[in-house]
């Protein structure tokens, strides 16, 4: 187990190195000139050259890459041409917001998706199953930004029970930053009012973000449970007269959950990088929007920083998922 873990951690290094090389090459092969854009239309050639020299983008590409990697080894992620801020500072600022949102979305998807999937399988081809299937099909097909706008209008404007956007009310001061997770920071500060406020702000964007994952989990769980329910050991358990909840939650769920676990791992990484639309609609100051703005401006240091961070999160999440397989299926051994 330890050897397996060590080997997997060591594998992260070449993966991240490949990631930096790939991202660097792509962001420099795309035509476009961030320096010229930042310098503005009336900038003279001298001004453009001064700005390029300041950010080192006047150097040949291999030199730029070596410099970047040398900085990375020292923990320096570079500076954004657009905002002139340190990328590490920006990531510290924006990443916790996205992580909090994604964790909330994943929690909603798992906590609703798994029971609904099981229920759908148990009630196969009956009215509740059909309703759940229609819901999950609709959820997968609905564009996320459209759903986000719909939620805003219904819950924010018509019913007026949830905030339209943002992480905290504009006129209120949020709890002191410790982790960057507003909910956790509020709890740490024992400010329960702030915790409720932060959760209220989190509800709509997290739900909007979770929906396609929720639908996938429902469908995956339904299919897996249906498959497991056909197994001989389930028939035996039924023949022995074991109660249905015991059969479902003790014997079926564990075996059916493996494939859902894979989906959760994949979705987690995907949501980290793909939360931009929901962040935009709900003005969630997260990393998705930061990454998009950087990509549009070809501001390569933030692009590299975000890619690396999401890459690390992706690899680590998948490692955790791989380890969890063993928890749910003791036949899996790590060597």
């Amino acid at each position: 187990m330890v050897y397996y873990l060590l080997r997997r951690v060591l594998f992260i290094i070449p993966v991240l190195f490949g990631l930096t090389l790939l991202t660097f090459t792509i962001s420099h092969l795309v035509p476009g000139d961030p320096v010229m854009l930042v310098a503005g239309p009336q900038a003279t050639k001298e001004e453009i050259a001064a700005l390029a020299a300041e950010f080192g983008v006047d150097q040949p590409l291999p030199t730029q890459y070596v410099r970047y990697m040398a900085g990375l080894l020292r923990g320096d992620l570079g500076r954004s041409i657009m905002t002139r801020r340190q990328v590490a500072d920006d990531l510290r600022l924006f990443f916790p917001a996205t992580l909090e949102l994604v964790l909330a979305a994943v929690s909603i998807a798992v906590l609703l998706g798994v029971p609904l999937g099981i229920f759908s399988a148990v009630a196969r081809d009956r009215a509740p199953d059909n309703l759940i299937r229609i819901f999950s099909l609709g959820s997968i097909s609905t564009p996320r930004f459209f759903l986000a706008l719909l939620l805003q209008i219904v819950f924010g404007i018509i019913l007026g029970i949830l905030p339209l956007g943002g992480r905290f009310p504009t006129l209120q001061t949020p709890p002191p930053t410790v982790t960057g997770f507003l909910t956790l920071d509020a709890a740490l500060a024992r400010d329960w009012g702030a915790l409720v406020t932060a959760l209220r702000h989190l509800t709509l964007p997290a739900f909007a973000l979770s929906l396609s994952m929720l639908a996938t989990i429902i469908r995956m769980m339904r299919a897996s449970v249906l498959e497991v329910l056909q197994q001989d050991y389930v028939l035996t358990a039924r023949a022995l007269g074991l109660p249905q909840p015991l059969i479902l939650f003790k014997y079926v769920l564990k075996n059916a959950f493996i494939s859902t676990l894979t989906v959760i791992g994949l979705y987690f990484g995907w949501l980290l990088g793909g939360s931009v639309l929901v962040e935009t609609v709900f003005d969630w100051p997260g990393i998705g929007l930061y990454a998009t703005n950087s990509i549009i401006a070809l501001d390569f240091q933030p692009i590299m920083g975000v890619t690396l961070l999401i890459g690390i999160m992706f690899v680590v999440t998948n490692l955790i998922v791989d380890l969890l397989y063993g928890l749910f299926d003791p036949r899996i051994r790590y060597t």
Partner: protein
Amino acid sequence: MSSTSAHRLFKLFAIVTLLTLLMASCAPAPTPAPAAPAPAKAAEPTKAPEPTKAPEPTKAAEPTKAPAPAAAPKVLIVASGQDISNLDPHTGDGYSNRAMQRNVYDALVRYEGNPPKVVPNLAESWTISADGLEYTFKLVKDARFHDGSPVTAEAVRYSFNRSLKLKKGGNWMFASAMDENSVSVVDDTTVKIRLTKPFAPFLSVLPWMFIVNPKVVEANKGQDEGQTWLKDHEAGSGPFVIKRWEPGNLYELERFPGYWKAGGGNLTGAIWKITRETSSQRLAVQKGDAHIAVDLTGDDMDFLKGSPGVVLIEEPEFRTFSIKMNYQNGPFTDIALRKAVSYAFDYDAMLAAEGEGHAVLMRGPLPPGILGADPNLEVPRMDLNKAKEWLAKSKYPNGGVKLSYIYVSGLEIERKFGLILLDSLKKLNLDLDVKQLVWTDMVALTKDPKTTPDFFPVYQTANYADPDNIAYAAYHGSQNGNWSNPTYNNPKTNELIERGRTTLAEAERIKIYGEFQRQVVEDAPDIFGVLENRKLAMRDSVLNWKFVPIASNAIEFFPLSLK
């Protein structure tokens, strides 16, 4: 971990999260909106200002009275999609940065009215030498920076020289007529600026030249003239100071109690709230979560019509839109083809795409209302007979050419214009390839006429209220290779623009710009498009707001009040 403990852990996790969600949905109603909805007022057009008199000395400045302590805070919330990336007044550009700068800093003069006039601010009066080269400004005696030190002539000299040295931000507006010896201190409250050559719009660029506190900048100079520090700190004398700075989320200012200027509204603070989607801005104003939304589209305005408590403002601003043709490479080097396309284009369809009442058609290169803009200029309008006549004179009498139109990715209105163009060109048997690119890539294409597309749609916002701004940026040959004017270059036009900026007499300038407009229309480098209205929505609780057609979305908070 055994399977039983895993099961328990799973159950515990489920219970905790469900409880959390339950708490969230059962929580009390949101914080009350800052503005209570009230019956809607019809949007009132901005009154035309009275003719500006010669600048009169400002009355002796008295510190603004701080709002009564018992009064509820009056915090204005502005919803904007654009982040504040750089507060440094000498390097930060763009309307959102300008909005913050103009509220924490002061300039010698400021804009007021419609049409905009330059009025005194830190400078209570000024004189201009007969040759237009020497400007002497008398400063307000009681003006103070936020640390209590006086705003002196030396601070003015320091600020100009810092800008000239850094060569960034708004420096381009005056750099061609100044050098590091241009500004001299006469005494503590008198500063003299000697231009290296006459520059008629000089006064009109000064509202964007903010004065910094040299002591504060020097104390935080670092290795880059204080650029890093001033990005999110201020060294100003303006009516507000920074309270909260949360990049990507919100920027809060609070009223500086010792502000030197008398008057102003009752605001105790203001928040620039980043609200990226225009539809979210619209909802925020509708619900009362924001007082002003600054980036609305025509659809948003239509949606908000009749909303209780919301006042809609639509005014033409000095922001032109034209479709530039590649003057130096490809089929459009042929003037007859440019003319043919100019007459084939469906201008009415363009106006309809903008939505009823949201835009007007341009008449030539200058925006209506700006000095010298000719309202009677003869410009091409859709006339297929003329278009075909010109096509017959061109190198492509039967059409059969495929042209390219590249627009900014995600800018829906430019895509619509591309489709209108495609439809118009079909009538001349010309084909069009409509493509989108991100703005950075488009900027890169314009470096060289060979990579510049045949059609290049461009919005051009005036930074100062003078025809020189649009004329120089969009039609002077020296700007070739920049997106503002990738390829158009006619020595005759260049000469007119040069004369326009160095001639001081207004009547003479009007003649020059009249000739300039006729020349540009004659050369047909652009399909002159539309002048989109500035579209703002605000709660009717906002008082004292007046429209100025220069950067009206970079809101000045000082005069405003909240009910």
